[in-house]
């Protein structure tokens, strides 16, 4: 059991917790936060492989995570704005009720 394994296990667990939240909770904010957790799990993986990966020198892992954080921020902003818009429309934020876009 190397530190890398441990890191990966932690990230796997975090990912699964996020996934569970996204799938199980009906509150849209929590779903969004679950997705954020999954992103964080992915970021942990990047850093873990950057730290313990076979090749050194390149700061690619870090750069990737930086971008990922930026995208996550954008996602959170747009997502929460959408949630507010949905709330204004249907007076709650239960995801299962927001089915206007069905085919």
């Amino acid at each position, binding site marked *: 059991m190397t530190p890398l394994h441990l890191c990966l296990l932690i990230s796997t667990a975090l990912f699964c917790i996020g996934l569970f939240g996204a799938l199980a909770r009906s509150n849209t904010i929590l*779903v969004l936060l679950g997705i954020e957790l999954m992103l964080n799990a992915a970021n942990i993986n990047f850093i873990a492989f950057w730290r313990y990966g076979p090749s050194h020198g390149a700061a690619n892992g870090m750069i990737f995570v930086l971008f990922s954080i930026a995208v996550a921020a954008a996602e959170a902003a747009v997502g929460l704005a959408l949630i507010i818009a949905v709330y204004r429309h249907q007076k709650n934020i239960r995801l299962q009720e927001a089915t206007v876009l069905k*085919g």
Partner: protein
Amino acid sequence: MTLPVQLLWLIPALPLLVAGIGALTRHRGVALAAIFAMAGSFALSCLALAGALQDPSVHATYNFAWFDLGHGALRLGFLLDPLTALMTTMVTFVGTLIFIFSLGYMKEDKNFSRFFCFLSLFAAAMLGLLVANSLLLLFVCWELVGLASYLLIGFWFHKPSAAAAAKKAFITTRIGDLGFLLGLLWLADSTGSLLFYDGGQGVLEATALASLSGQTLACGLALSTAIGLLIFCGAVGKSGQFPLHVWLPDAMEGPTPVSALIHAATMVAAGVFLVARVYPLMSADALLAAVPVHALTVVAFIGAITALMGALIACAQNDIKRILAFSTVSQLGYMMLALGVGSSTAAIFHLLTHAFFKALLFLGAGSVIHAAHHEQDIRQLGGLRTKMKVTFATFAIGMMALSGVPFLFSGFWSKEAILHAAHEWDVSHLPLYAGLCAVVLTAFYMTRLVAETFFGKPRSHGAEHAHENSAVMTAPLVILAVCAVLLGFLGTPYWPWLQKTLDPHYEATHGGLGLMLLSIGLVGAGLGLGWALYGRKLRTTAAARDPLDTAAPAVMAVLADRLGFDELYAATVGRLNSATAAFADFLDRYVIGGLVTFLAQLGIFSGGVNRQVDEANLNGGFDAVSESVRGSGLFYSRKQTGETHGYLRVVAVAFVLLALVLALGGVR
């Protein structure tokens, strides 16, 4: 001082000007203007007459181009010869008097100025007709005269009978005019000209006449005969000759001055004038022996039939104006008879005298009608002799002139001339006999008319309160009466001035004394018979039966019904006309319209069939494909629940599977 032919157009132009003014204004002064214009035209006509009399054998012409046609032009022209000059003088003189009479007669009418406008239009057209040197110009004026007649007959257009009579007159004369038009076209086509006299090129000059009478048609007629007869059709219509006479009695619906001017003195005589004008053409076939019929023979018989028929019917009429109208028909028949038997001078002589005494009679009738509060039925009148002395005196003169009372009255001389000519005609004596019968009848019905109207006791309220009219109406009567007496002396066998003027080659024939005595006897018989039946035992009530009616009710009923011509025409021509119209409408609406609709329906139907075929075959396969696409689309769209959790779940399961695949397969 004479009027040169170049200025001849001034004669019709003066009344035309007044007509134009009258069309634009309703001022009562139009009447005075019309009278002055007529008087001016009369003065000009006298000047023209003076010029024409200087050398009666000359046909002075003035031709001008109307418009370009091909390399040449369509030409019209004016003609001045004694015939024209005498006619214009007569028309303007009688016209002036009648215009003056109308001042009084129409005083109360609210369309007073319009009446004079129409009268002036008529005068202009009539004078234009007289001065024309072109058959086309003559035709133009001929139609305009018809228009004026139409407008004036229908002057009281709010009366349906007047409106119908106007239409009947126009349509009936137009039937004749179509023949005239065809004759004119034929003439134009075969000679290339329509000018009467054109320095040797005119249609009435030797070259053209020789060529026309030289050609023979398929039916054996000479070309000139055919053209002449077609032109004569126009005269038949306009002059109320049998069989187109039916409109003239109805035309009495117009105001009485109109009847006097148009339907007695001038327009109806235009037919006679026309035949006299184209007399060289009508008689061009006279020397041909092999033709089945000569144009003038037809004219003579038509005239004879009309003269006799008109006189017969006149005996059974009760309306004062109708009696005079049928008398006009009869007298016009005389003129045609004269033309037909070869004496155009006698015809014109009678035309002139007739114009005066018939205008006199009509104006006298108008005077009676005006005085008797528009009572026209002679059975309702009576006793006017003492109430209207001037009218009675002048009317009596007119009556005697018309009846042909010997020596003093103009009608006698002109009628004698006609009978004399008929006697000399070598084709047949039938027209002469018809004319002699008509002499008796004329004297008879005129006696009846005078006796019923002026003698006895008044038989109605209108006649009771009648009194003599104002001078503006009686003065023309007196002047006309004087003329009705004097005019006869212009053409007596002992001093045939008129005949010589009209026909420089005229030679007075002698030896007609026996015929003259016979006709004097016949006039006396007619007068005596009339007086015996109506004068000795005067009618006492309006309802009393006519002695003739008692004697021969069936004959009189037929005559009173005008020999049933109106009914006959209504049953034949009228019905044919409406049947043709109905047929044309049916053809249009159902046959052709139906065909079009059928074709359209056929088009729509084939379109429908086409569509069915398309849908069954071509579209079938395509539809199946698109239906399956649609079905799958529907299937997948049903999967689109909009449930975000569902989508997420699918993504997650896919992710698990992906991970499983990667893990089992190994990274490498």
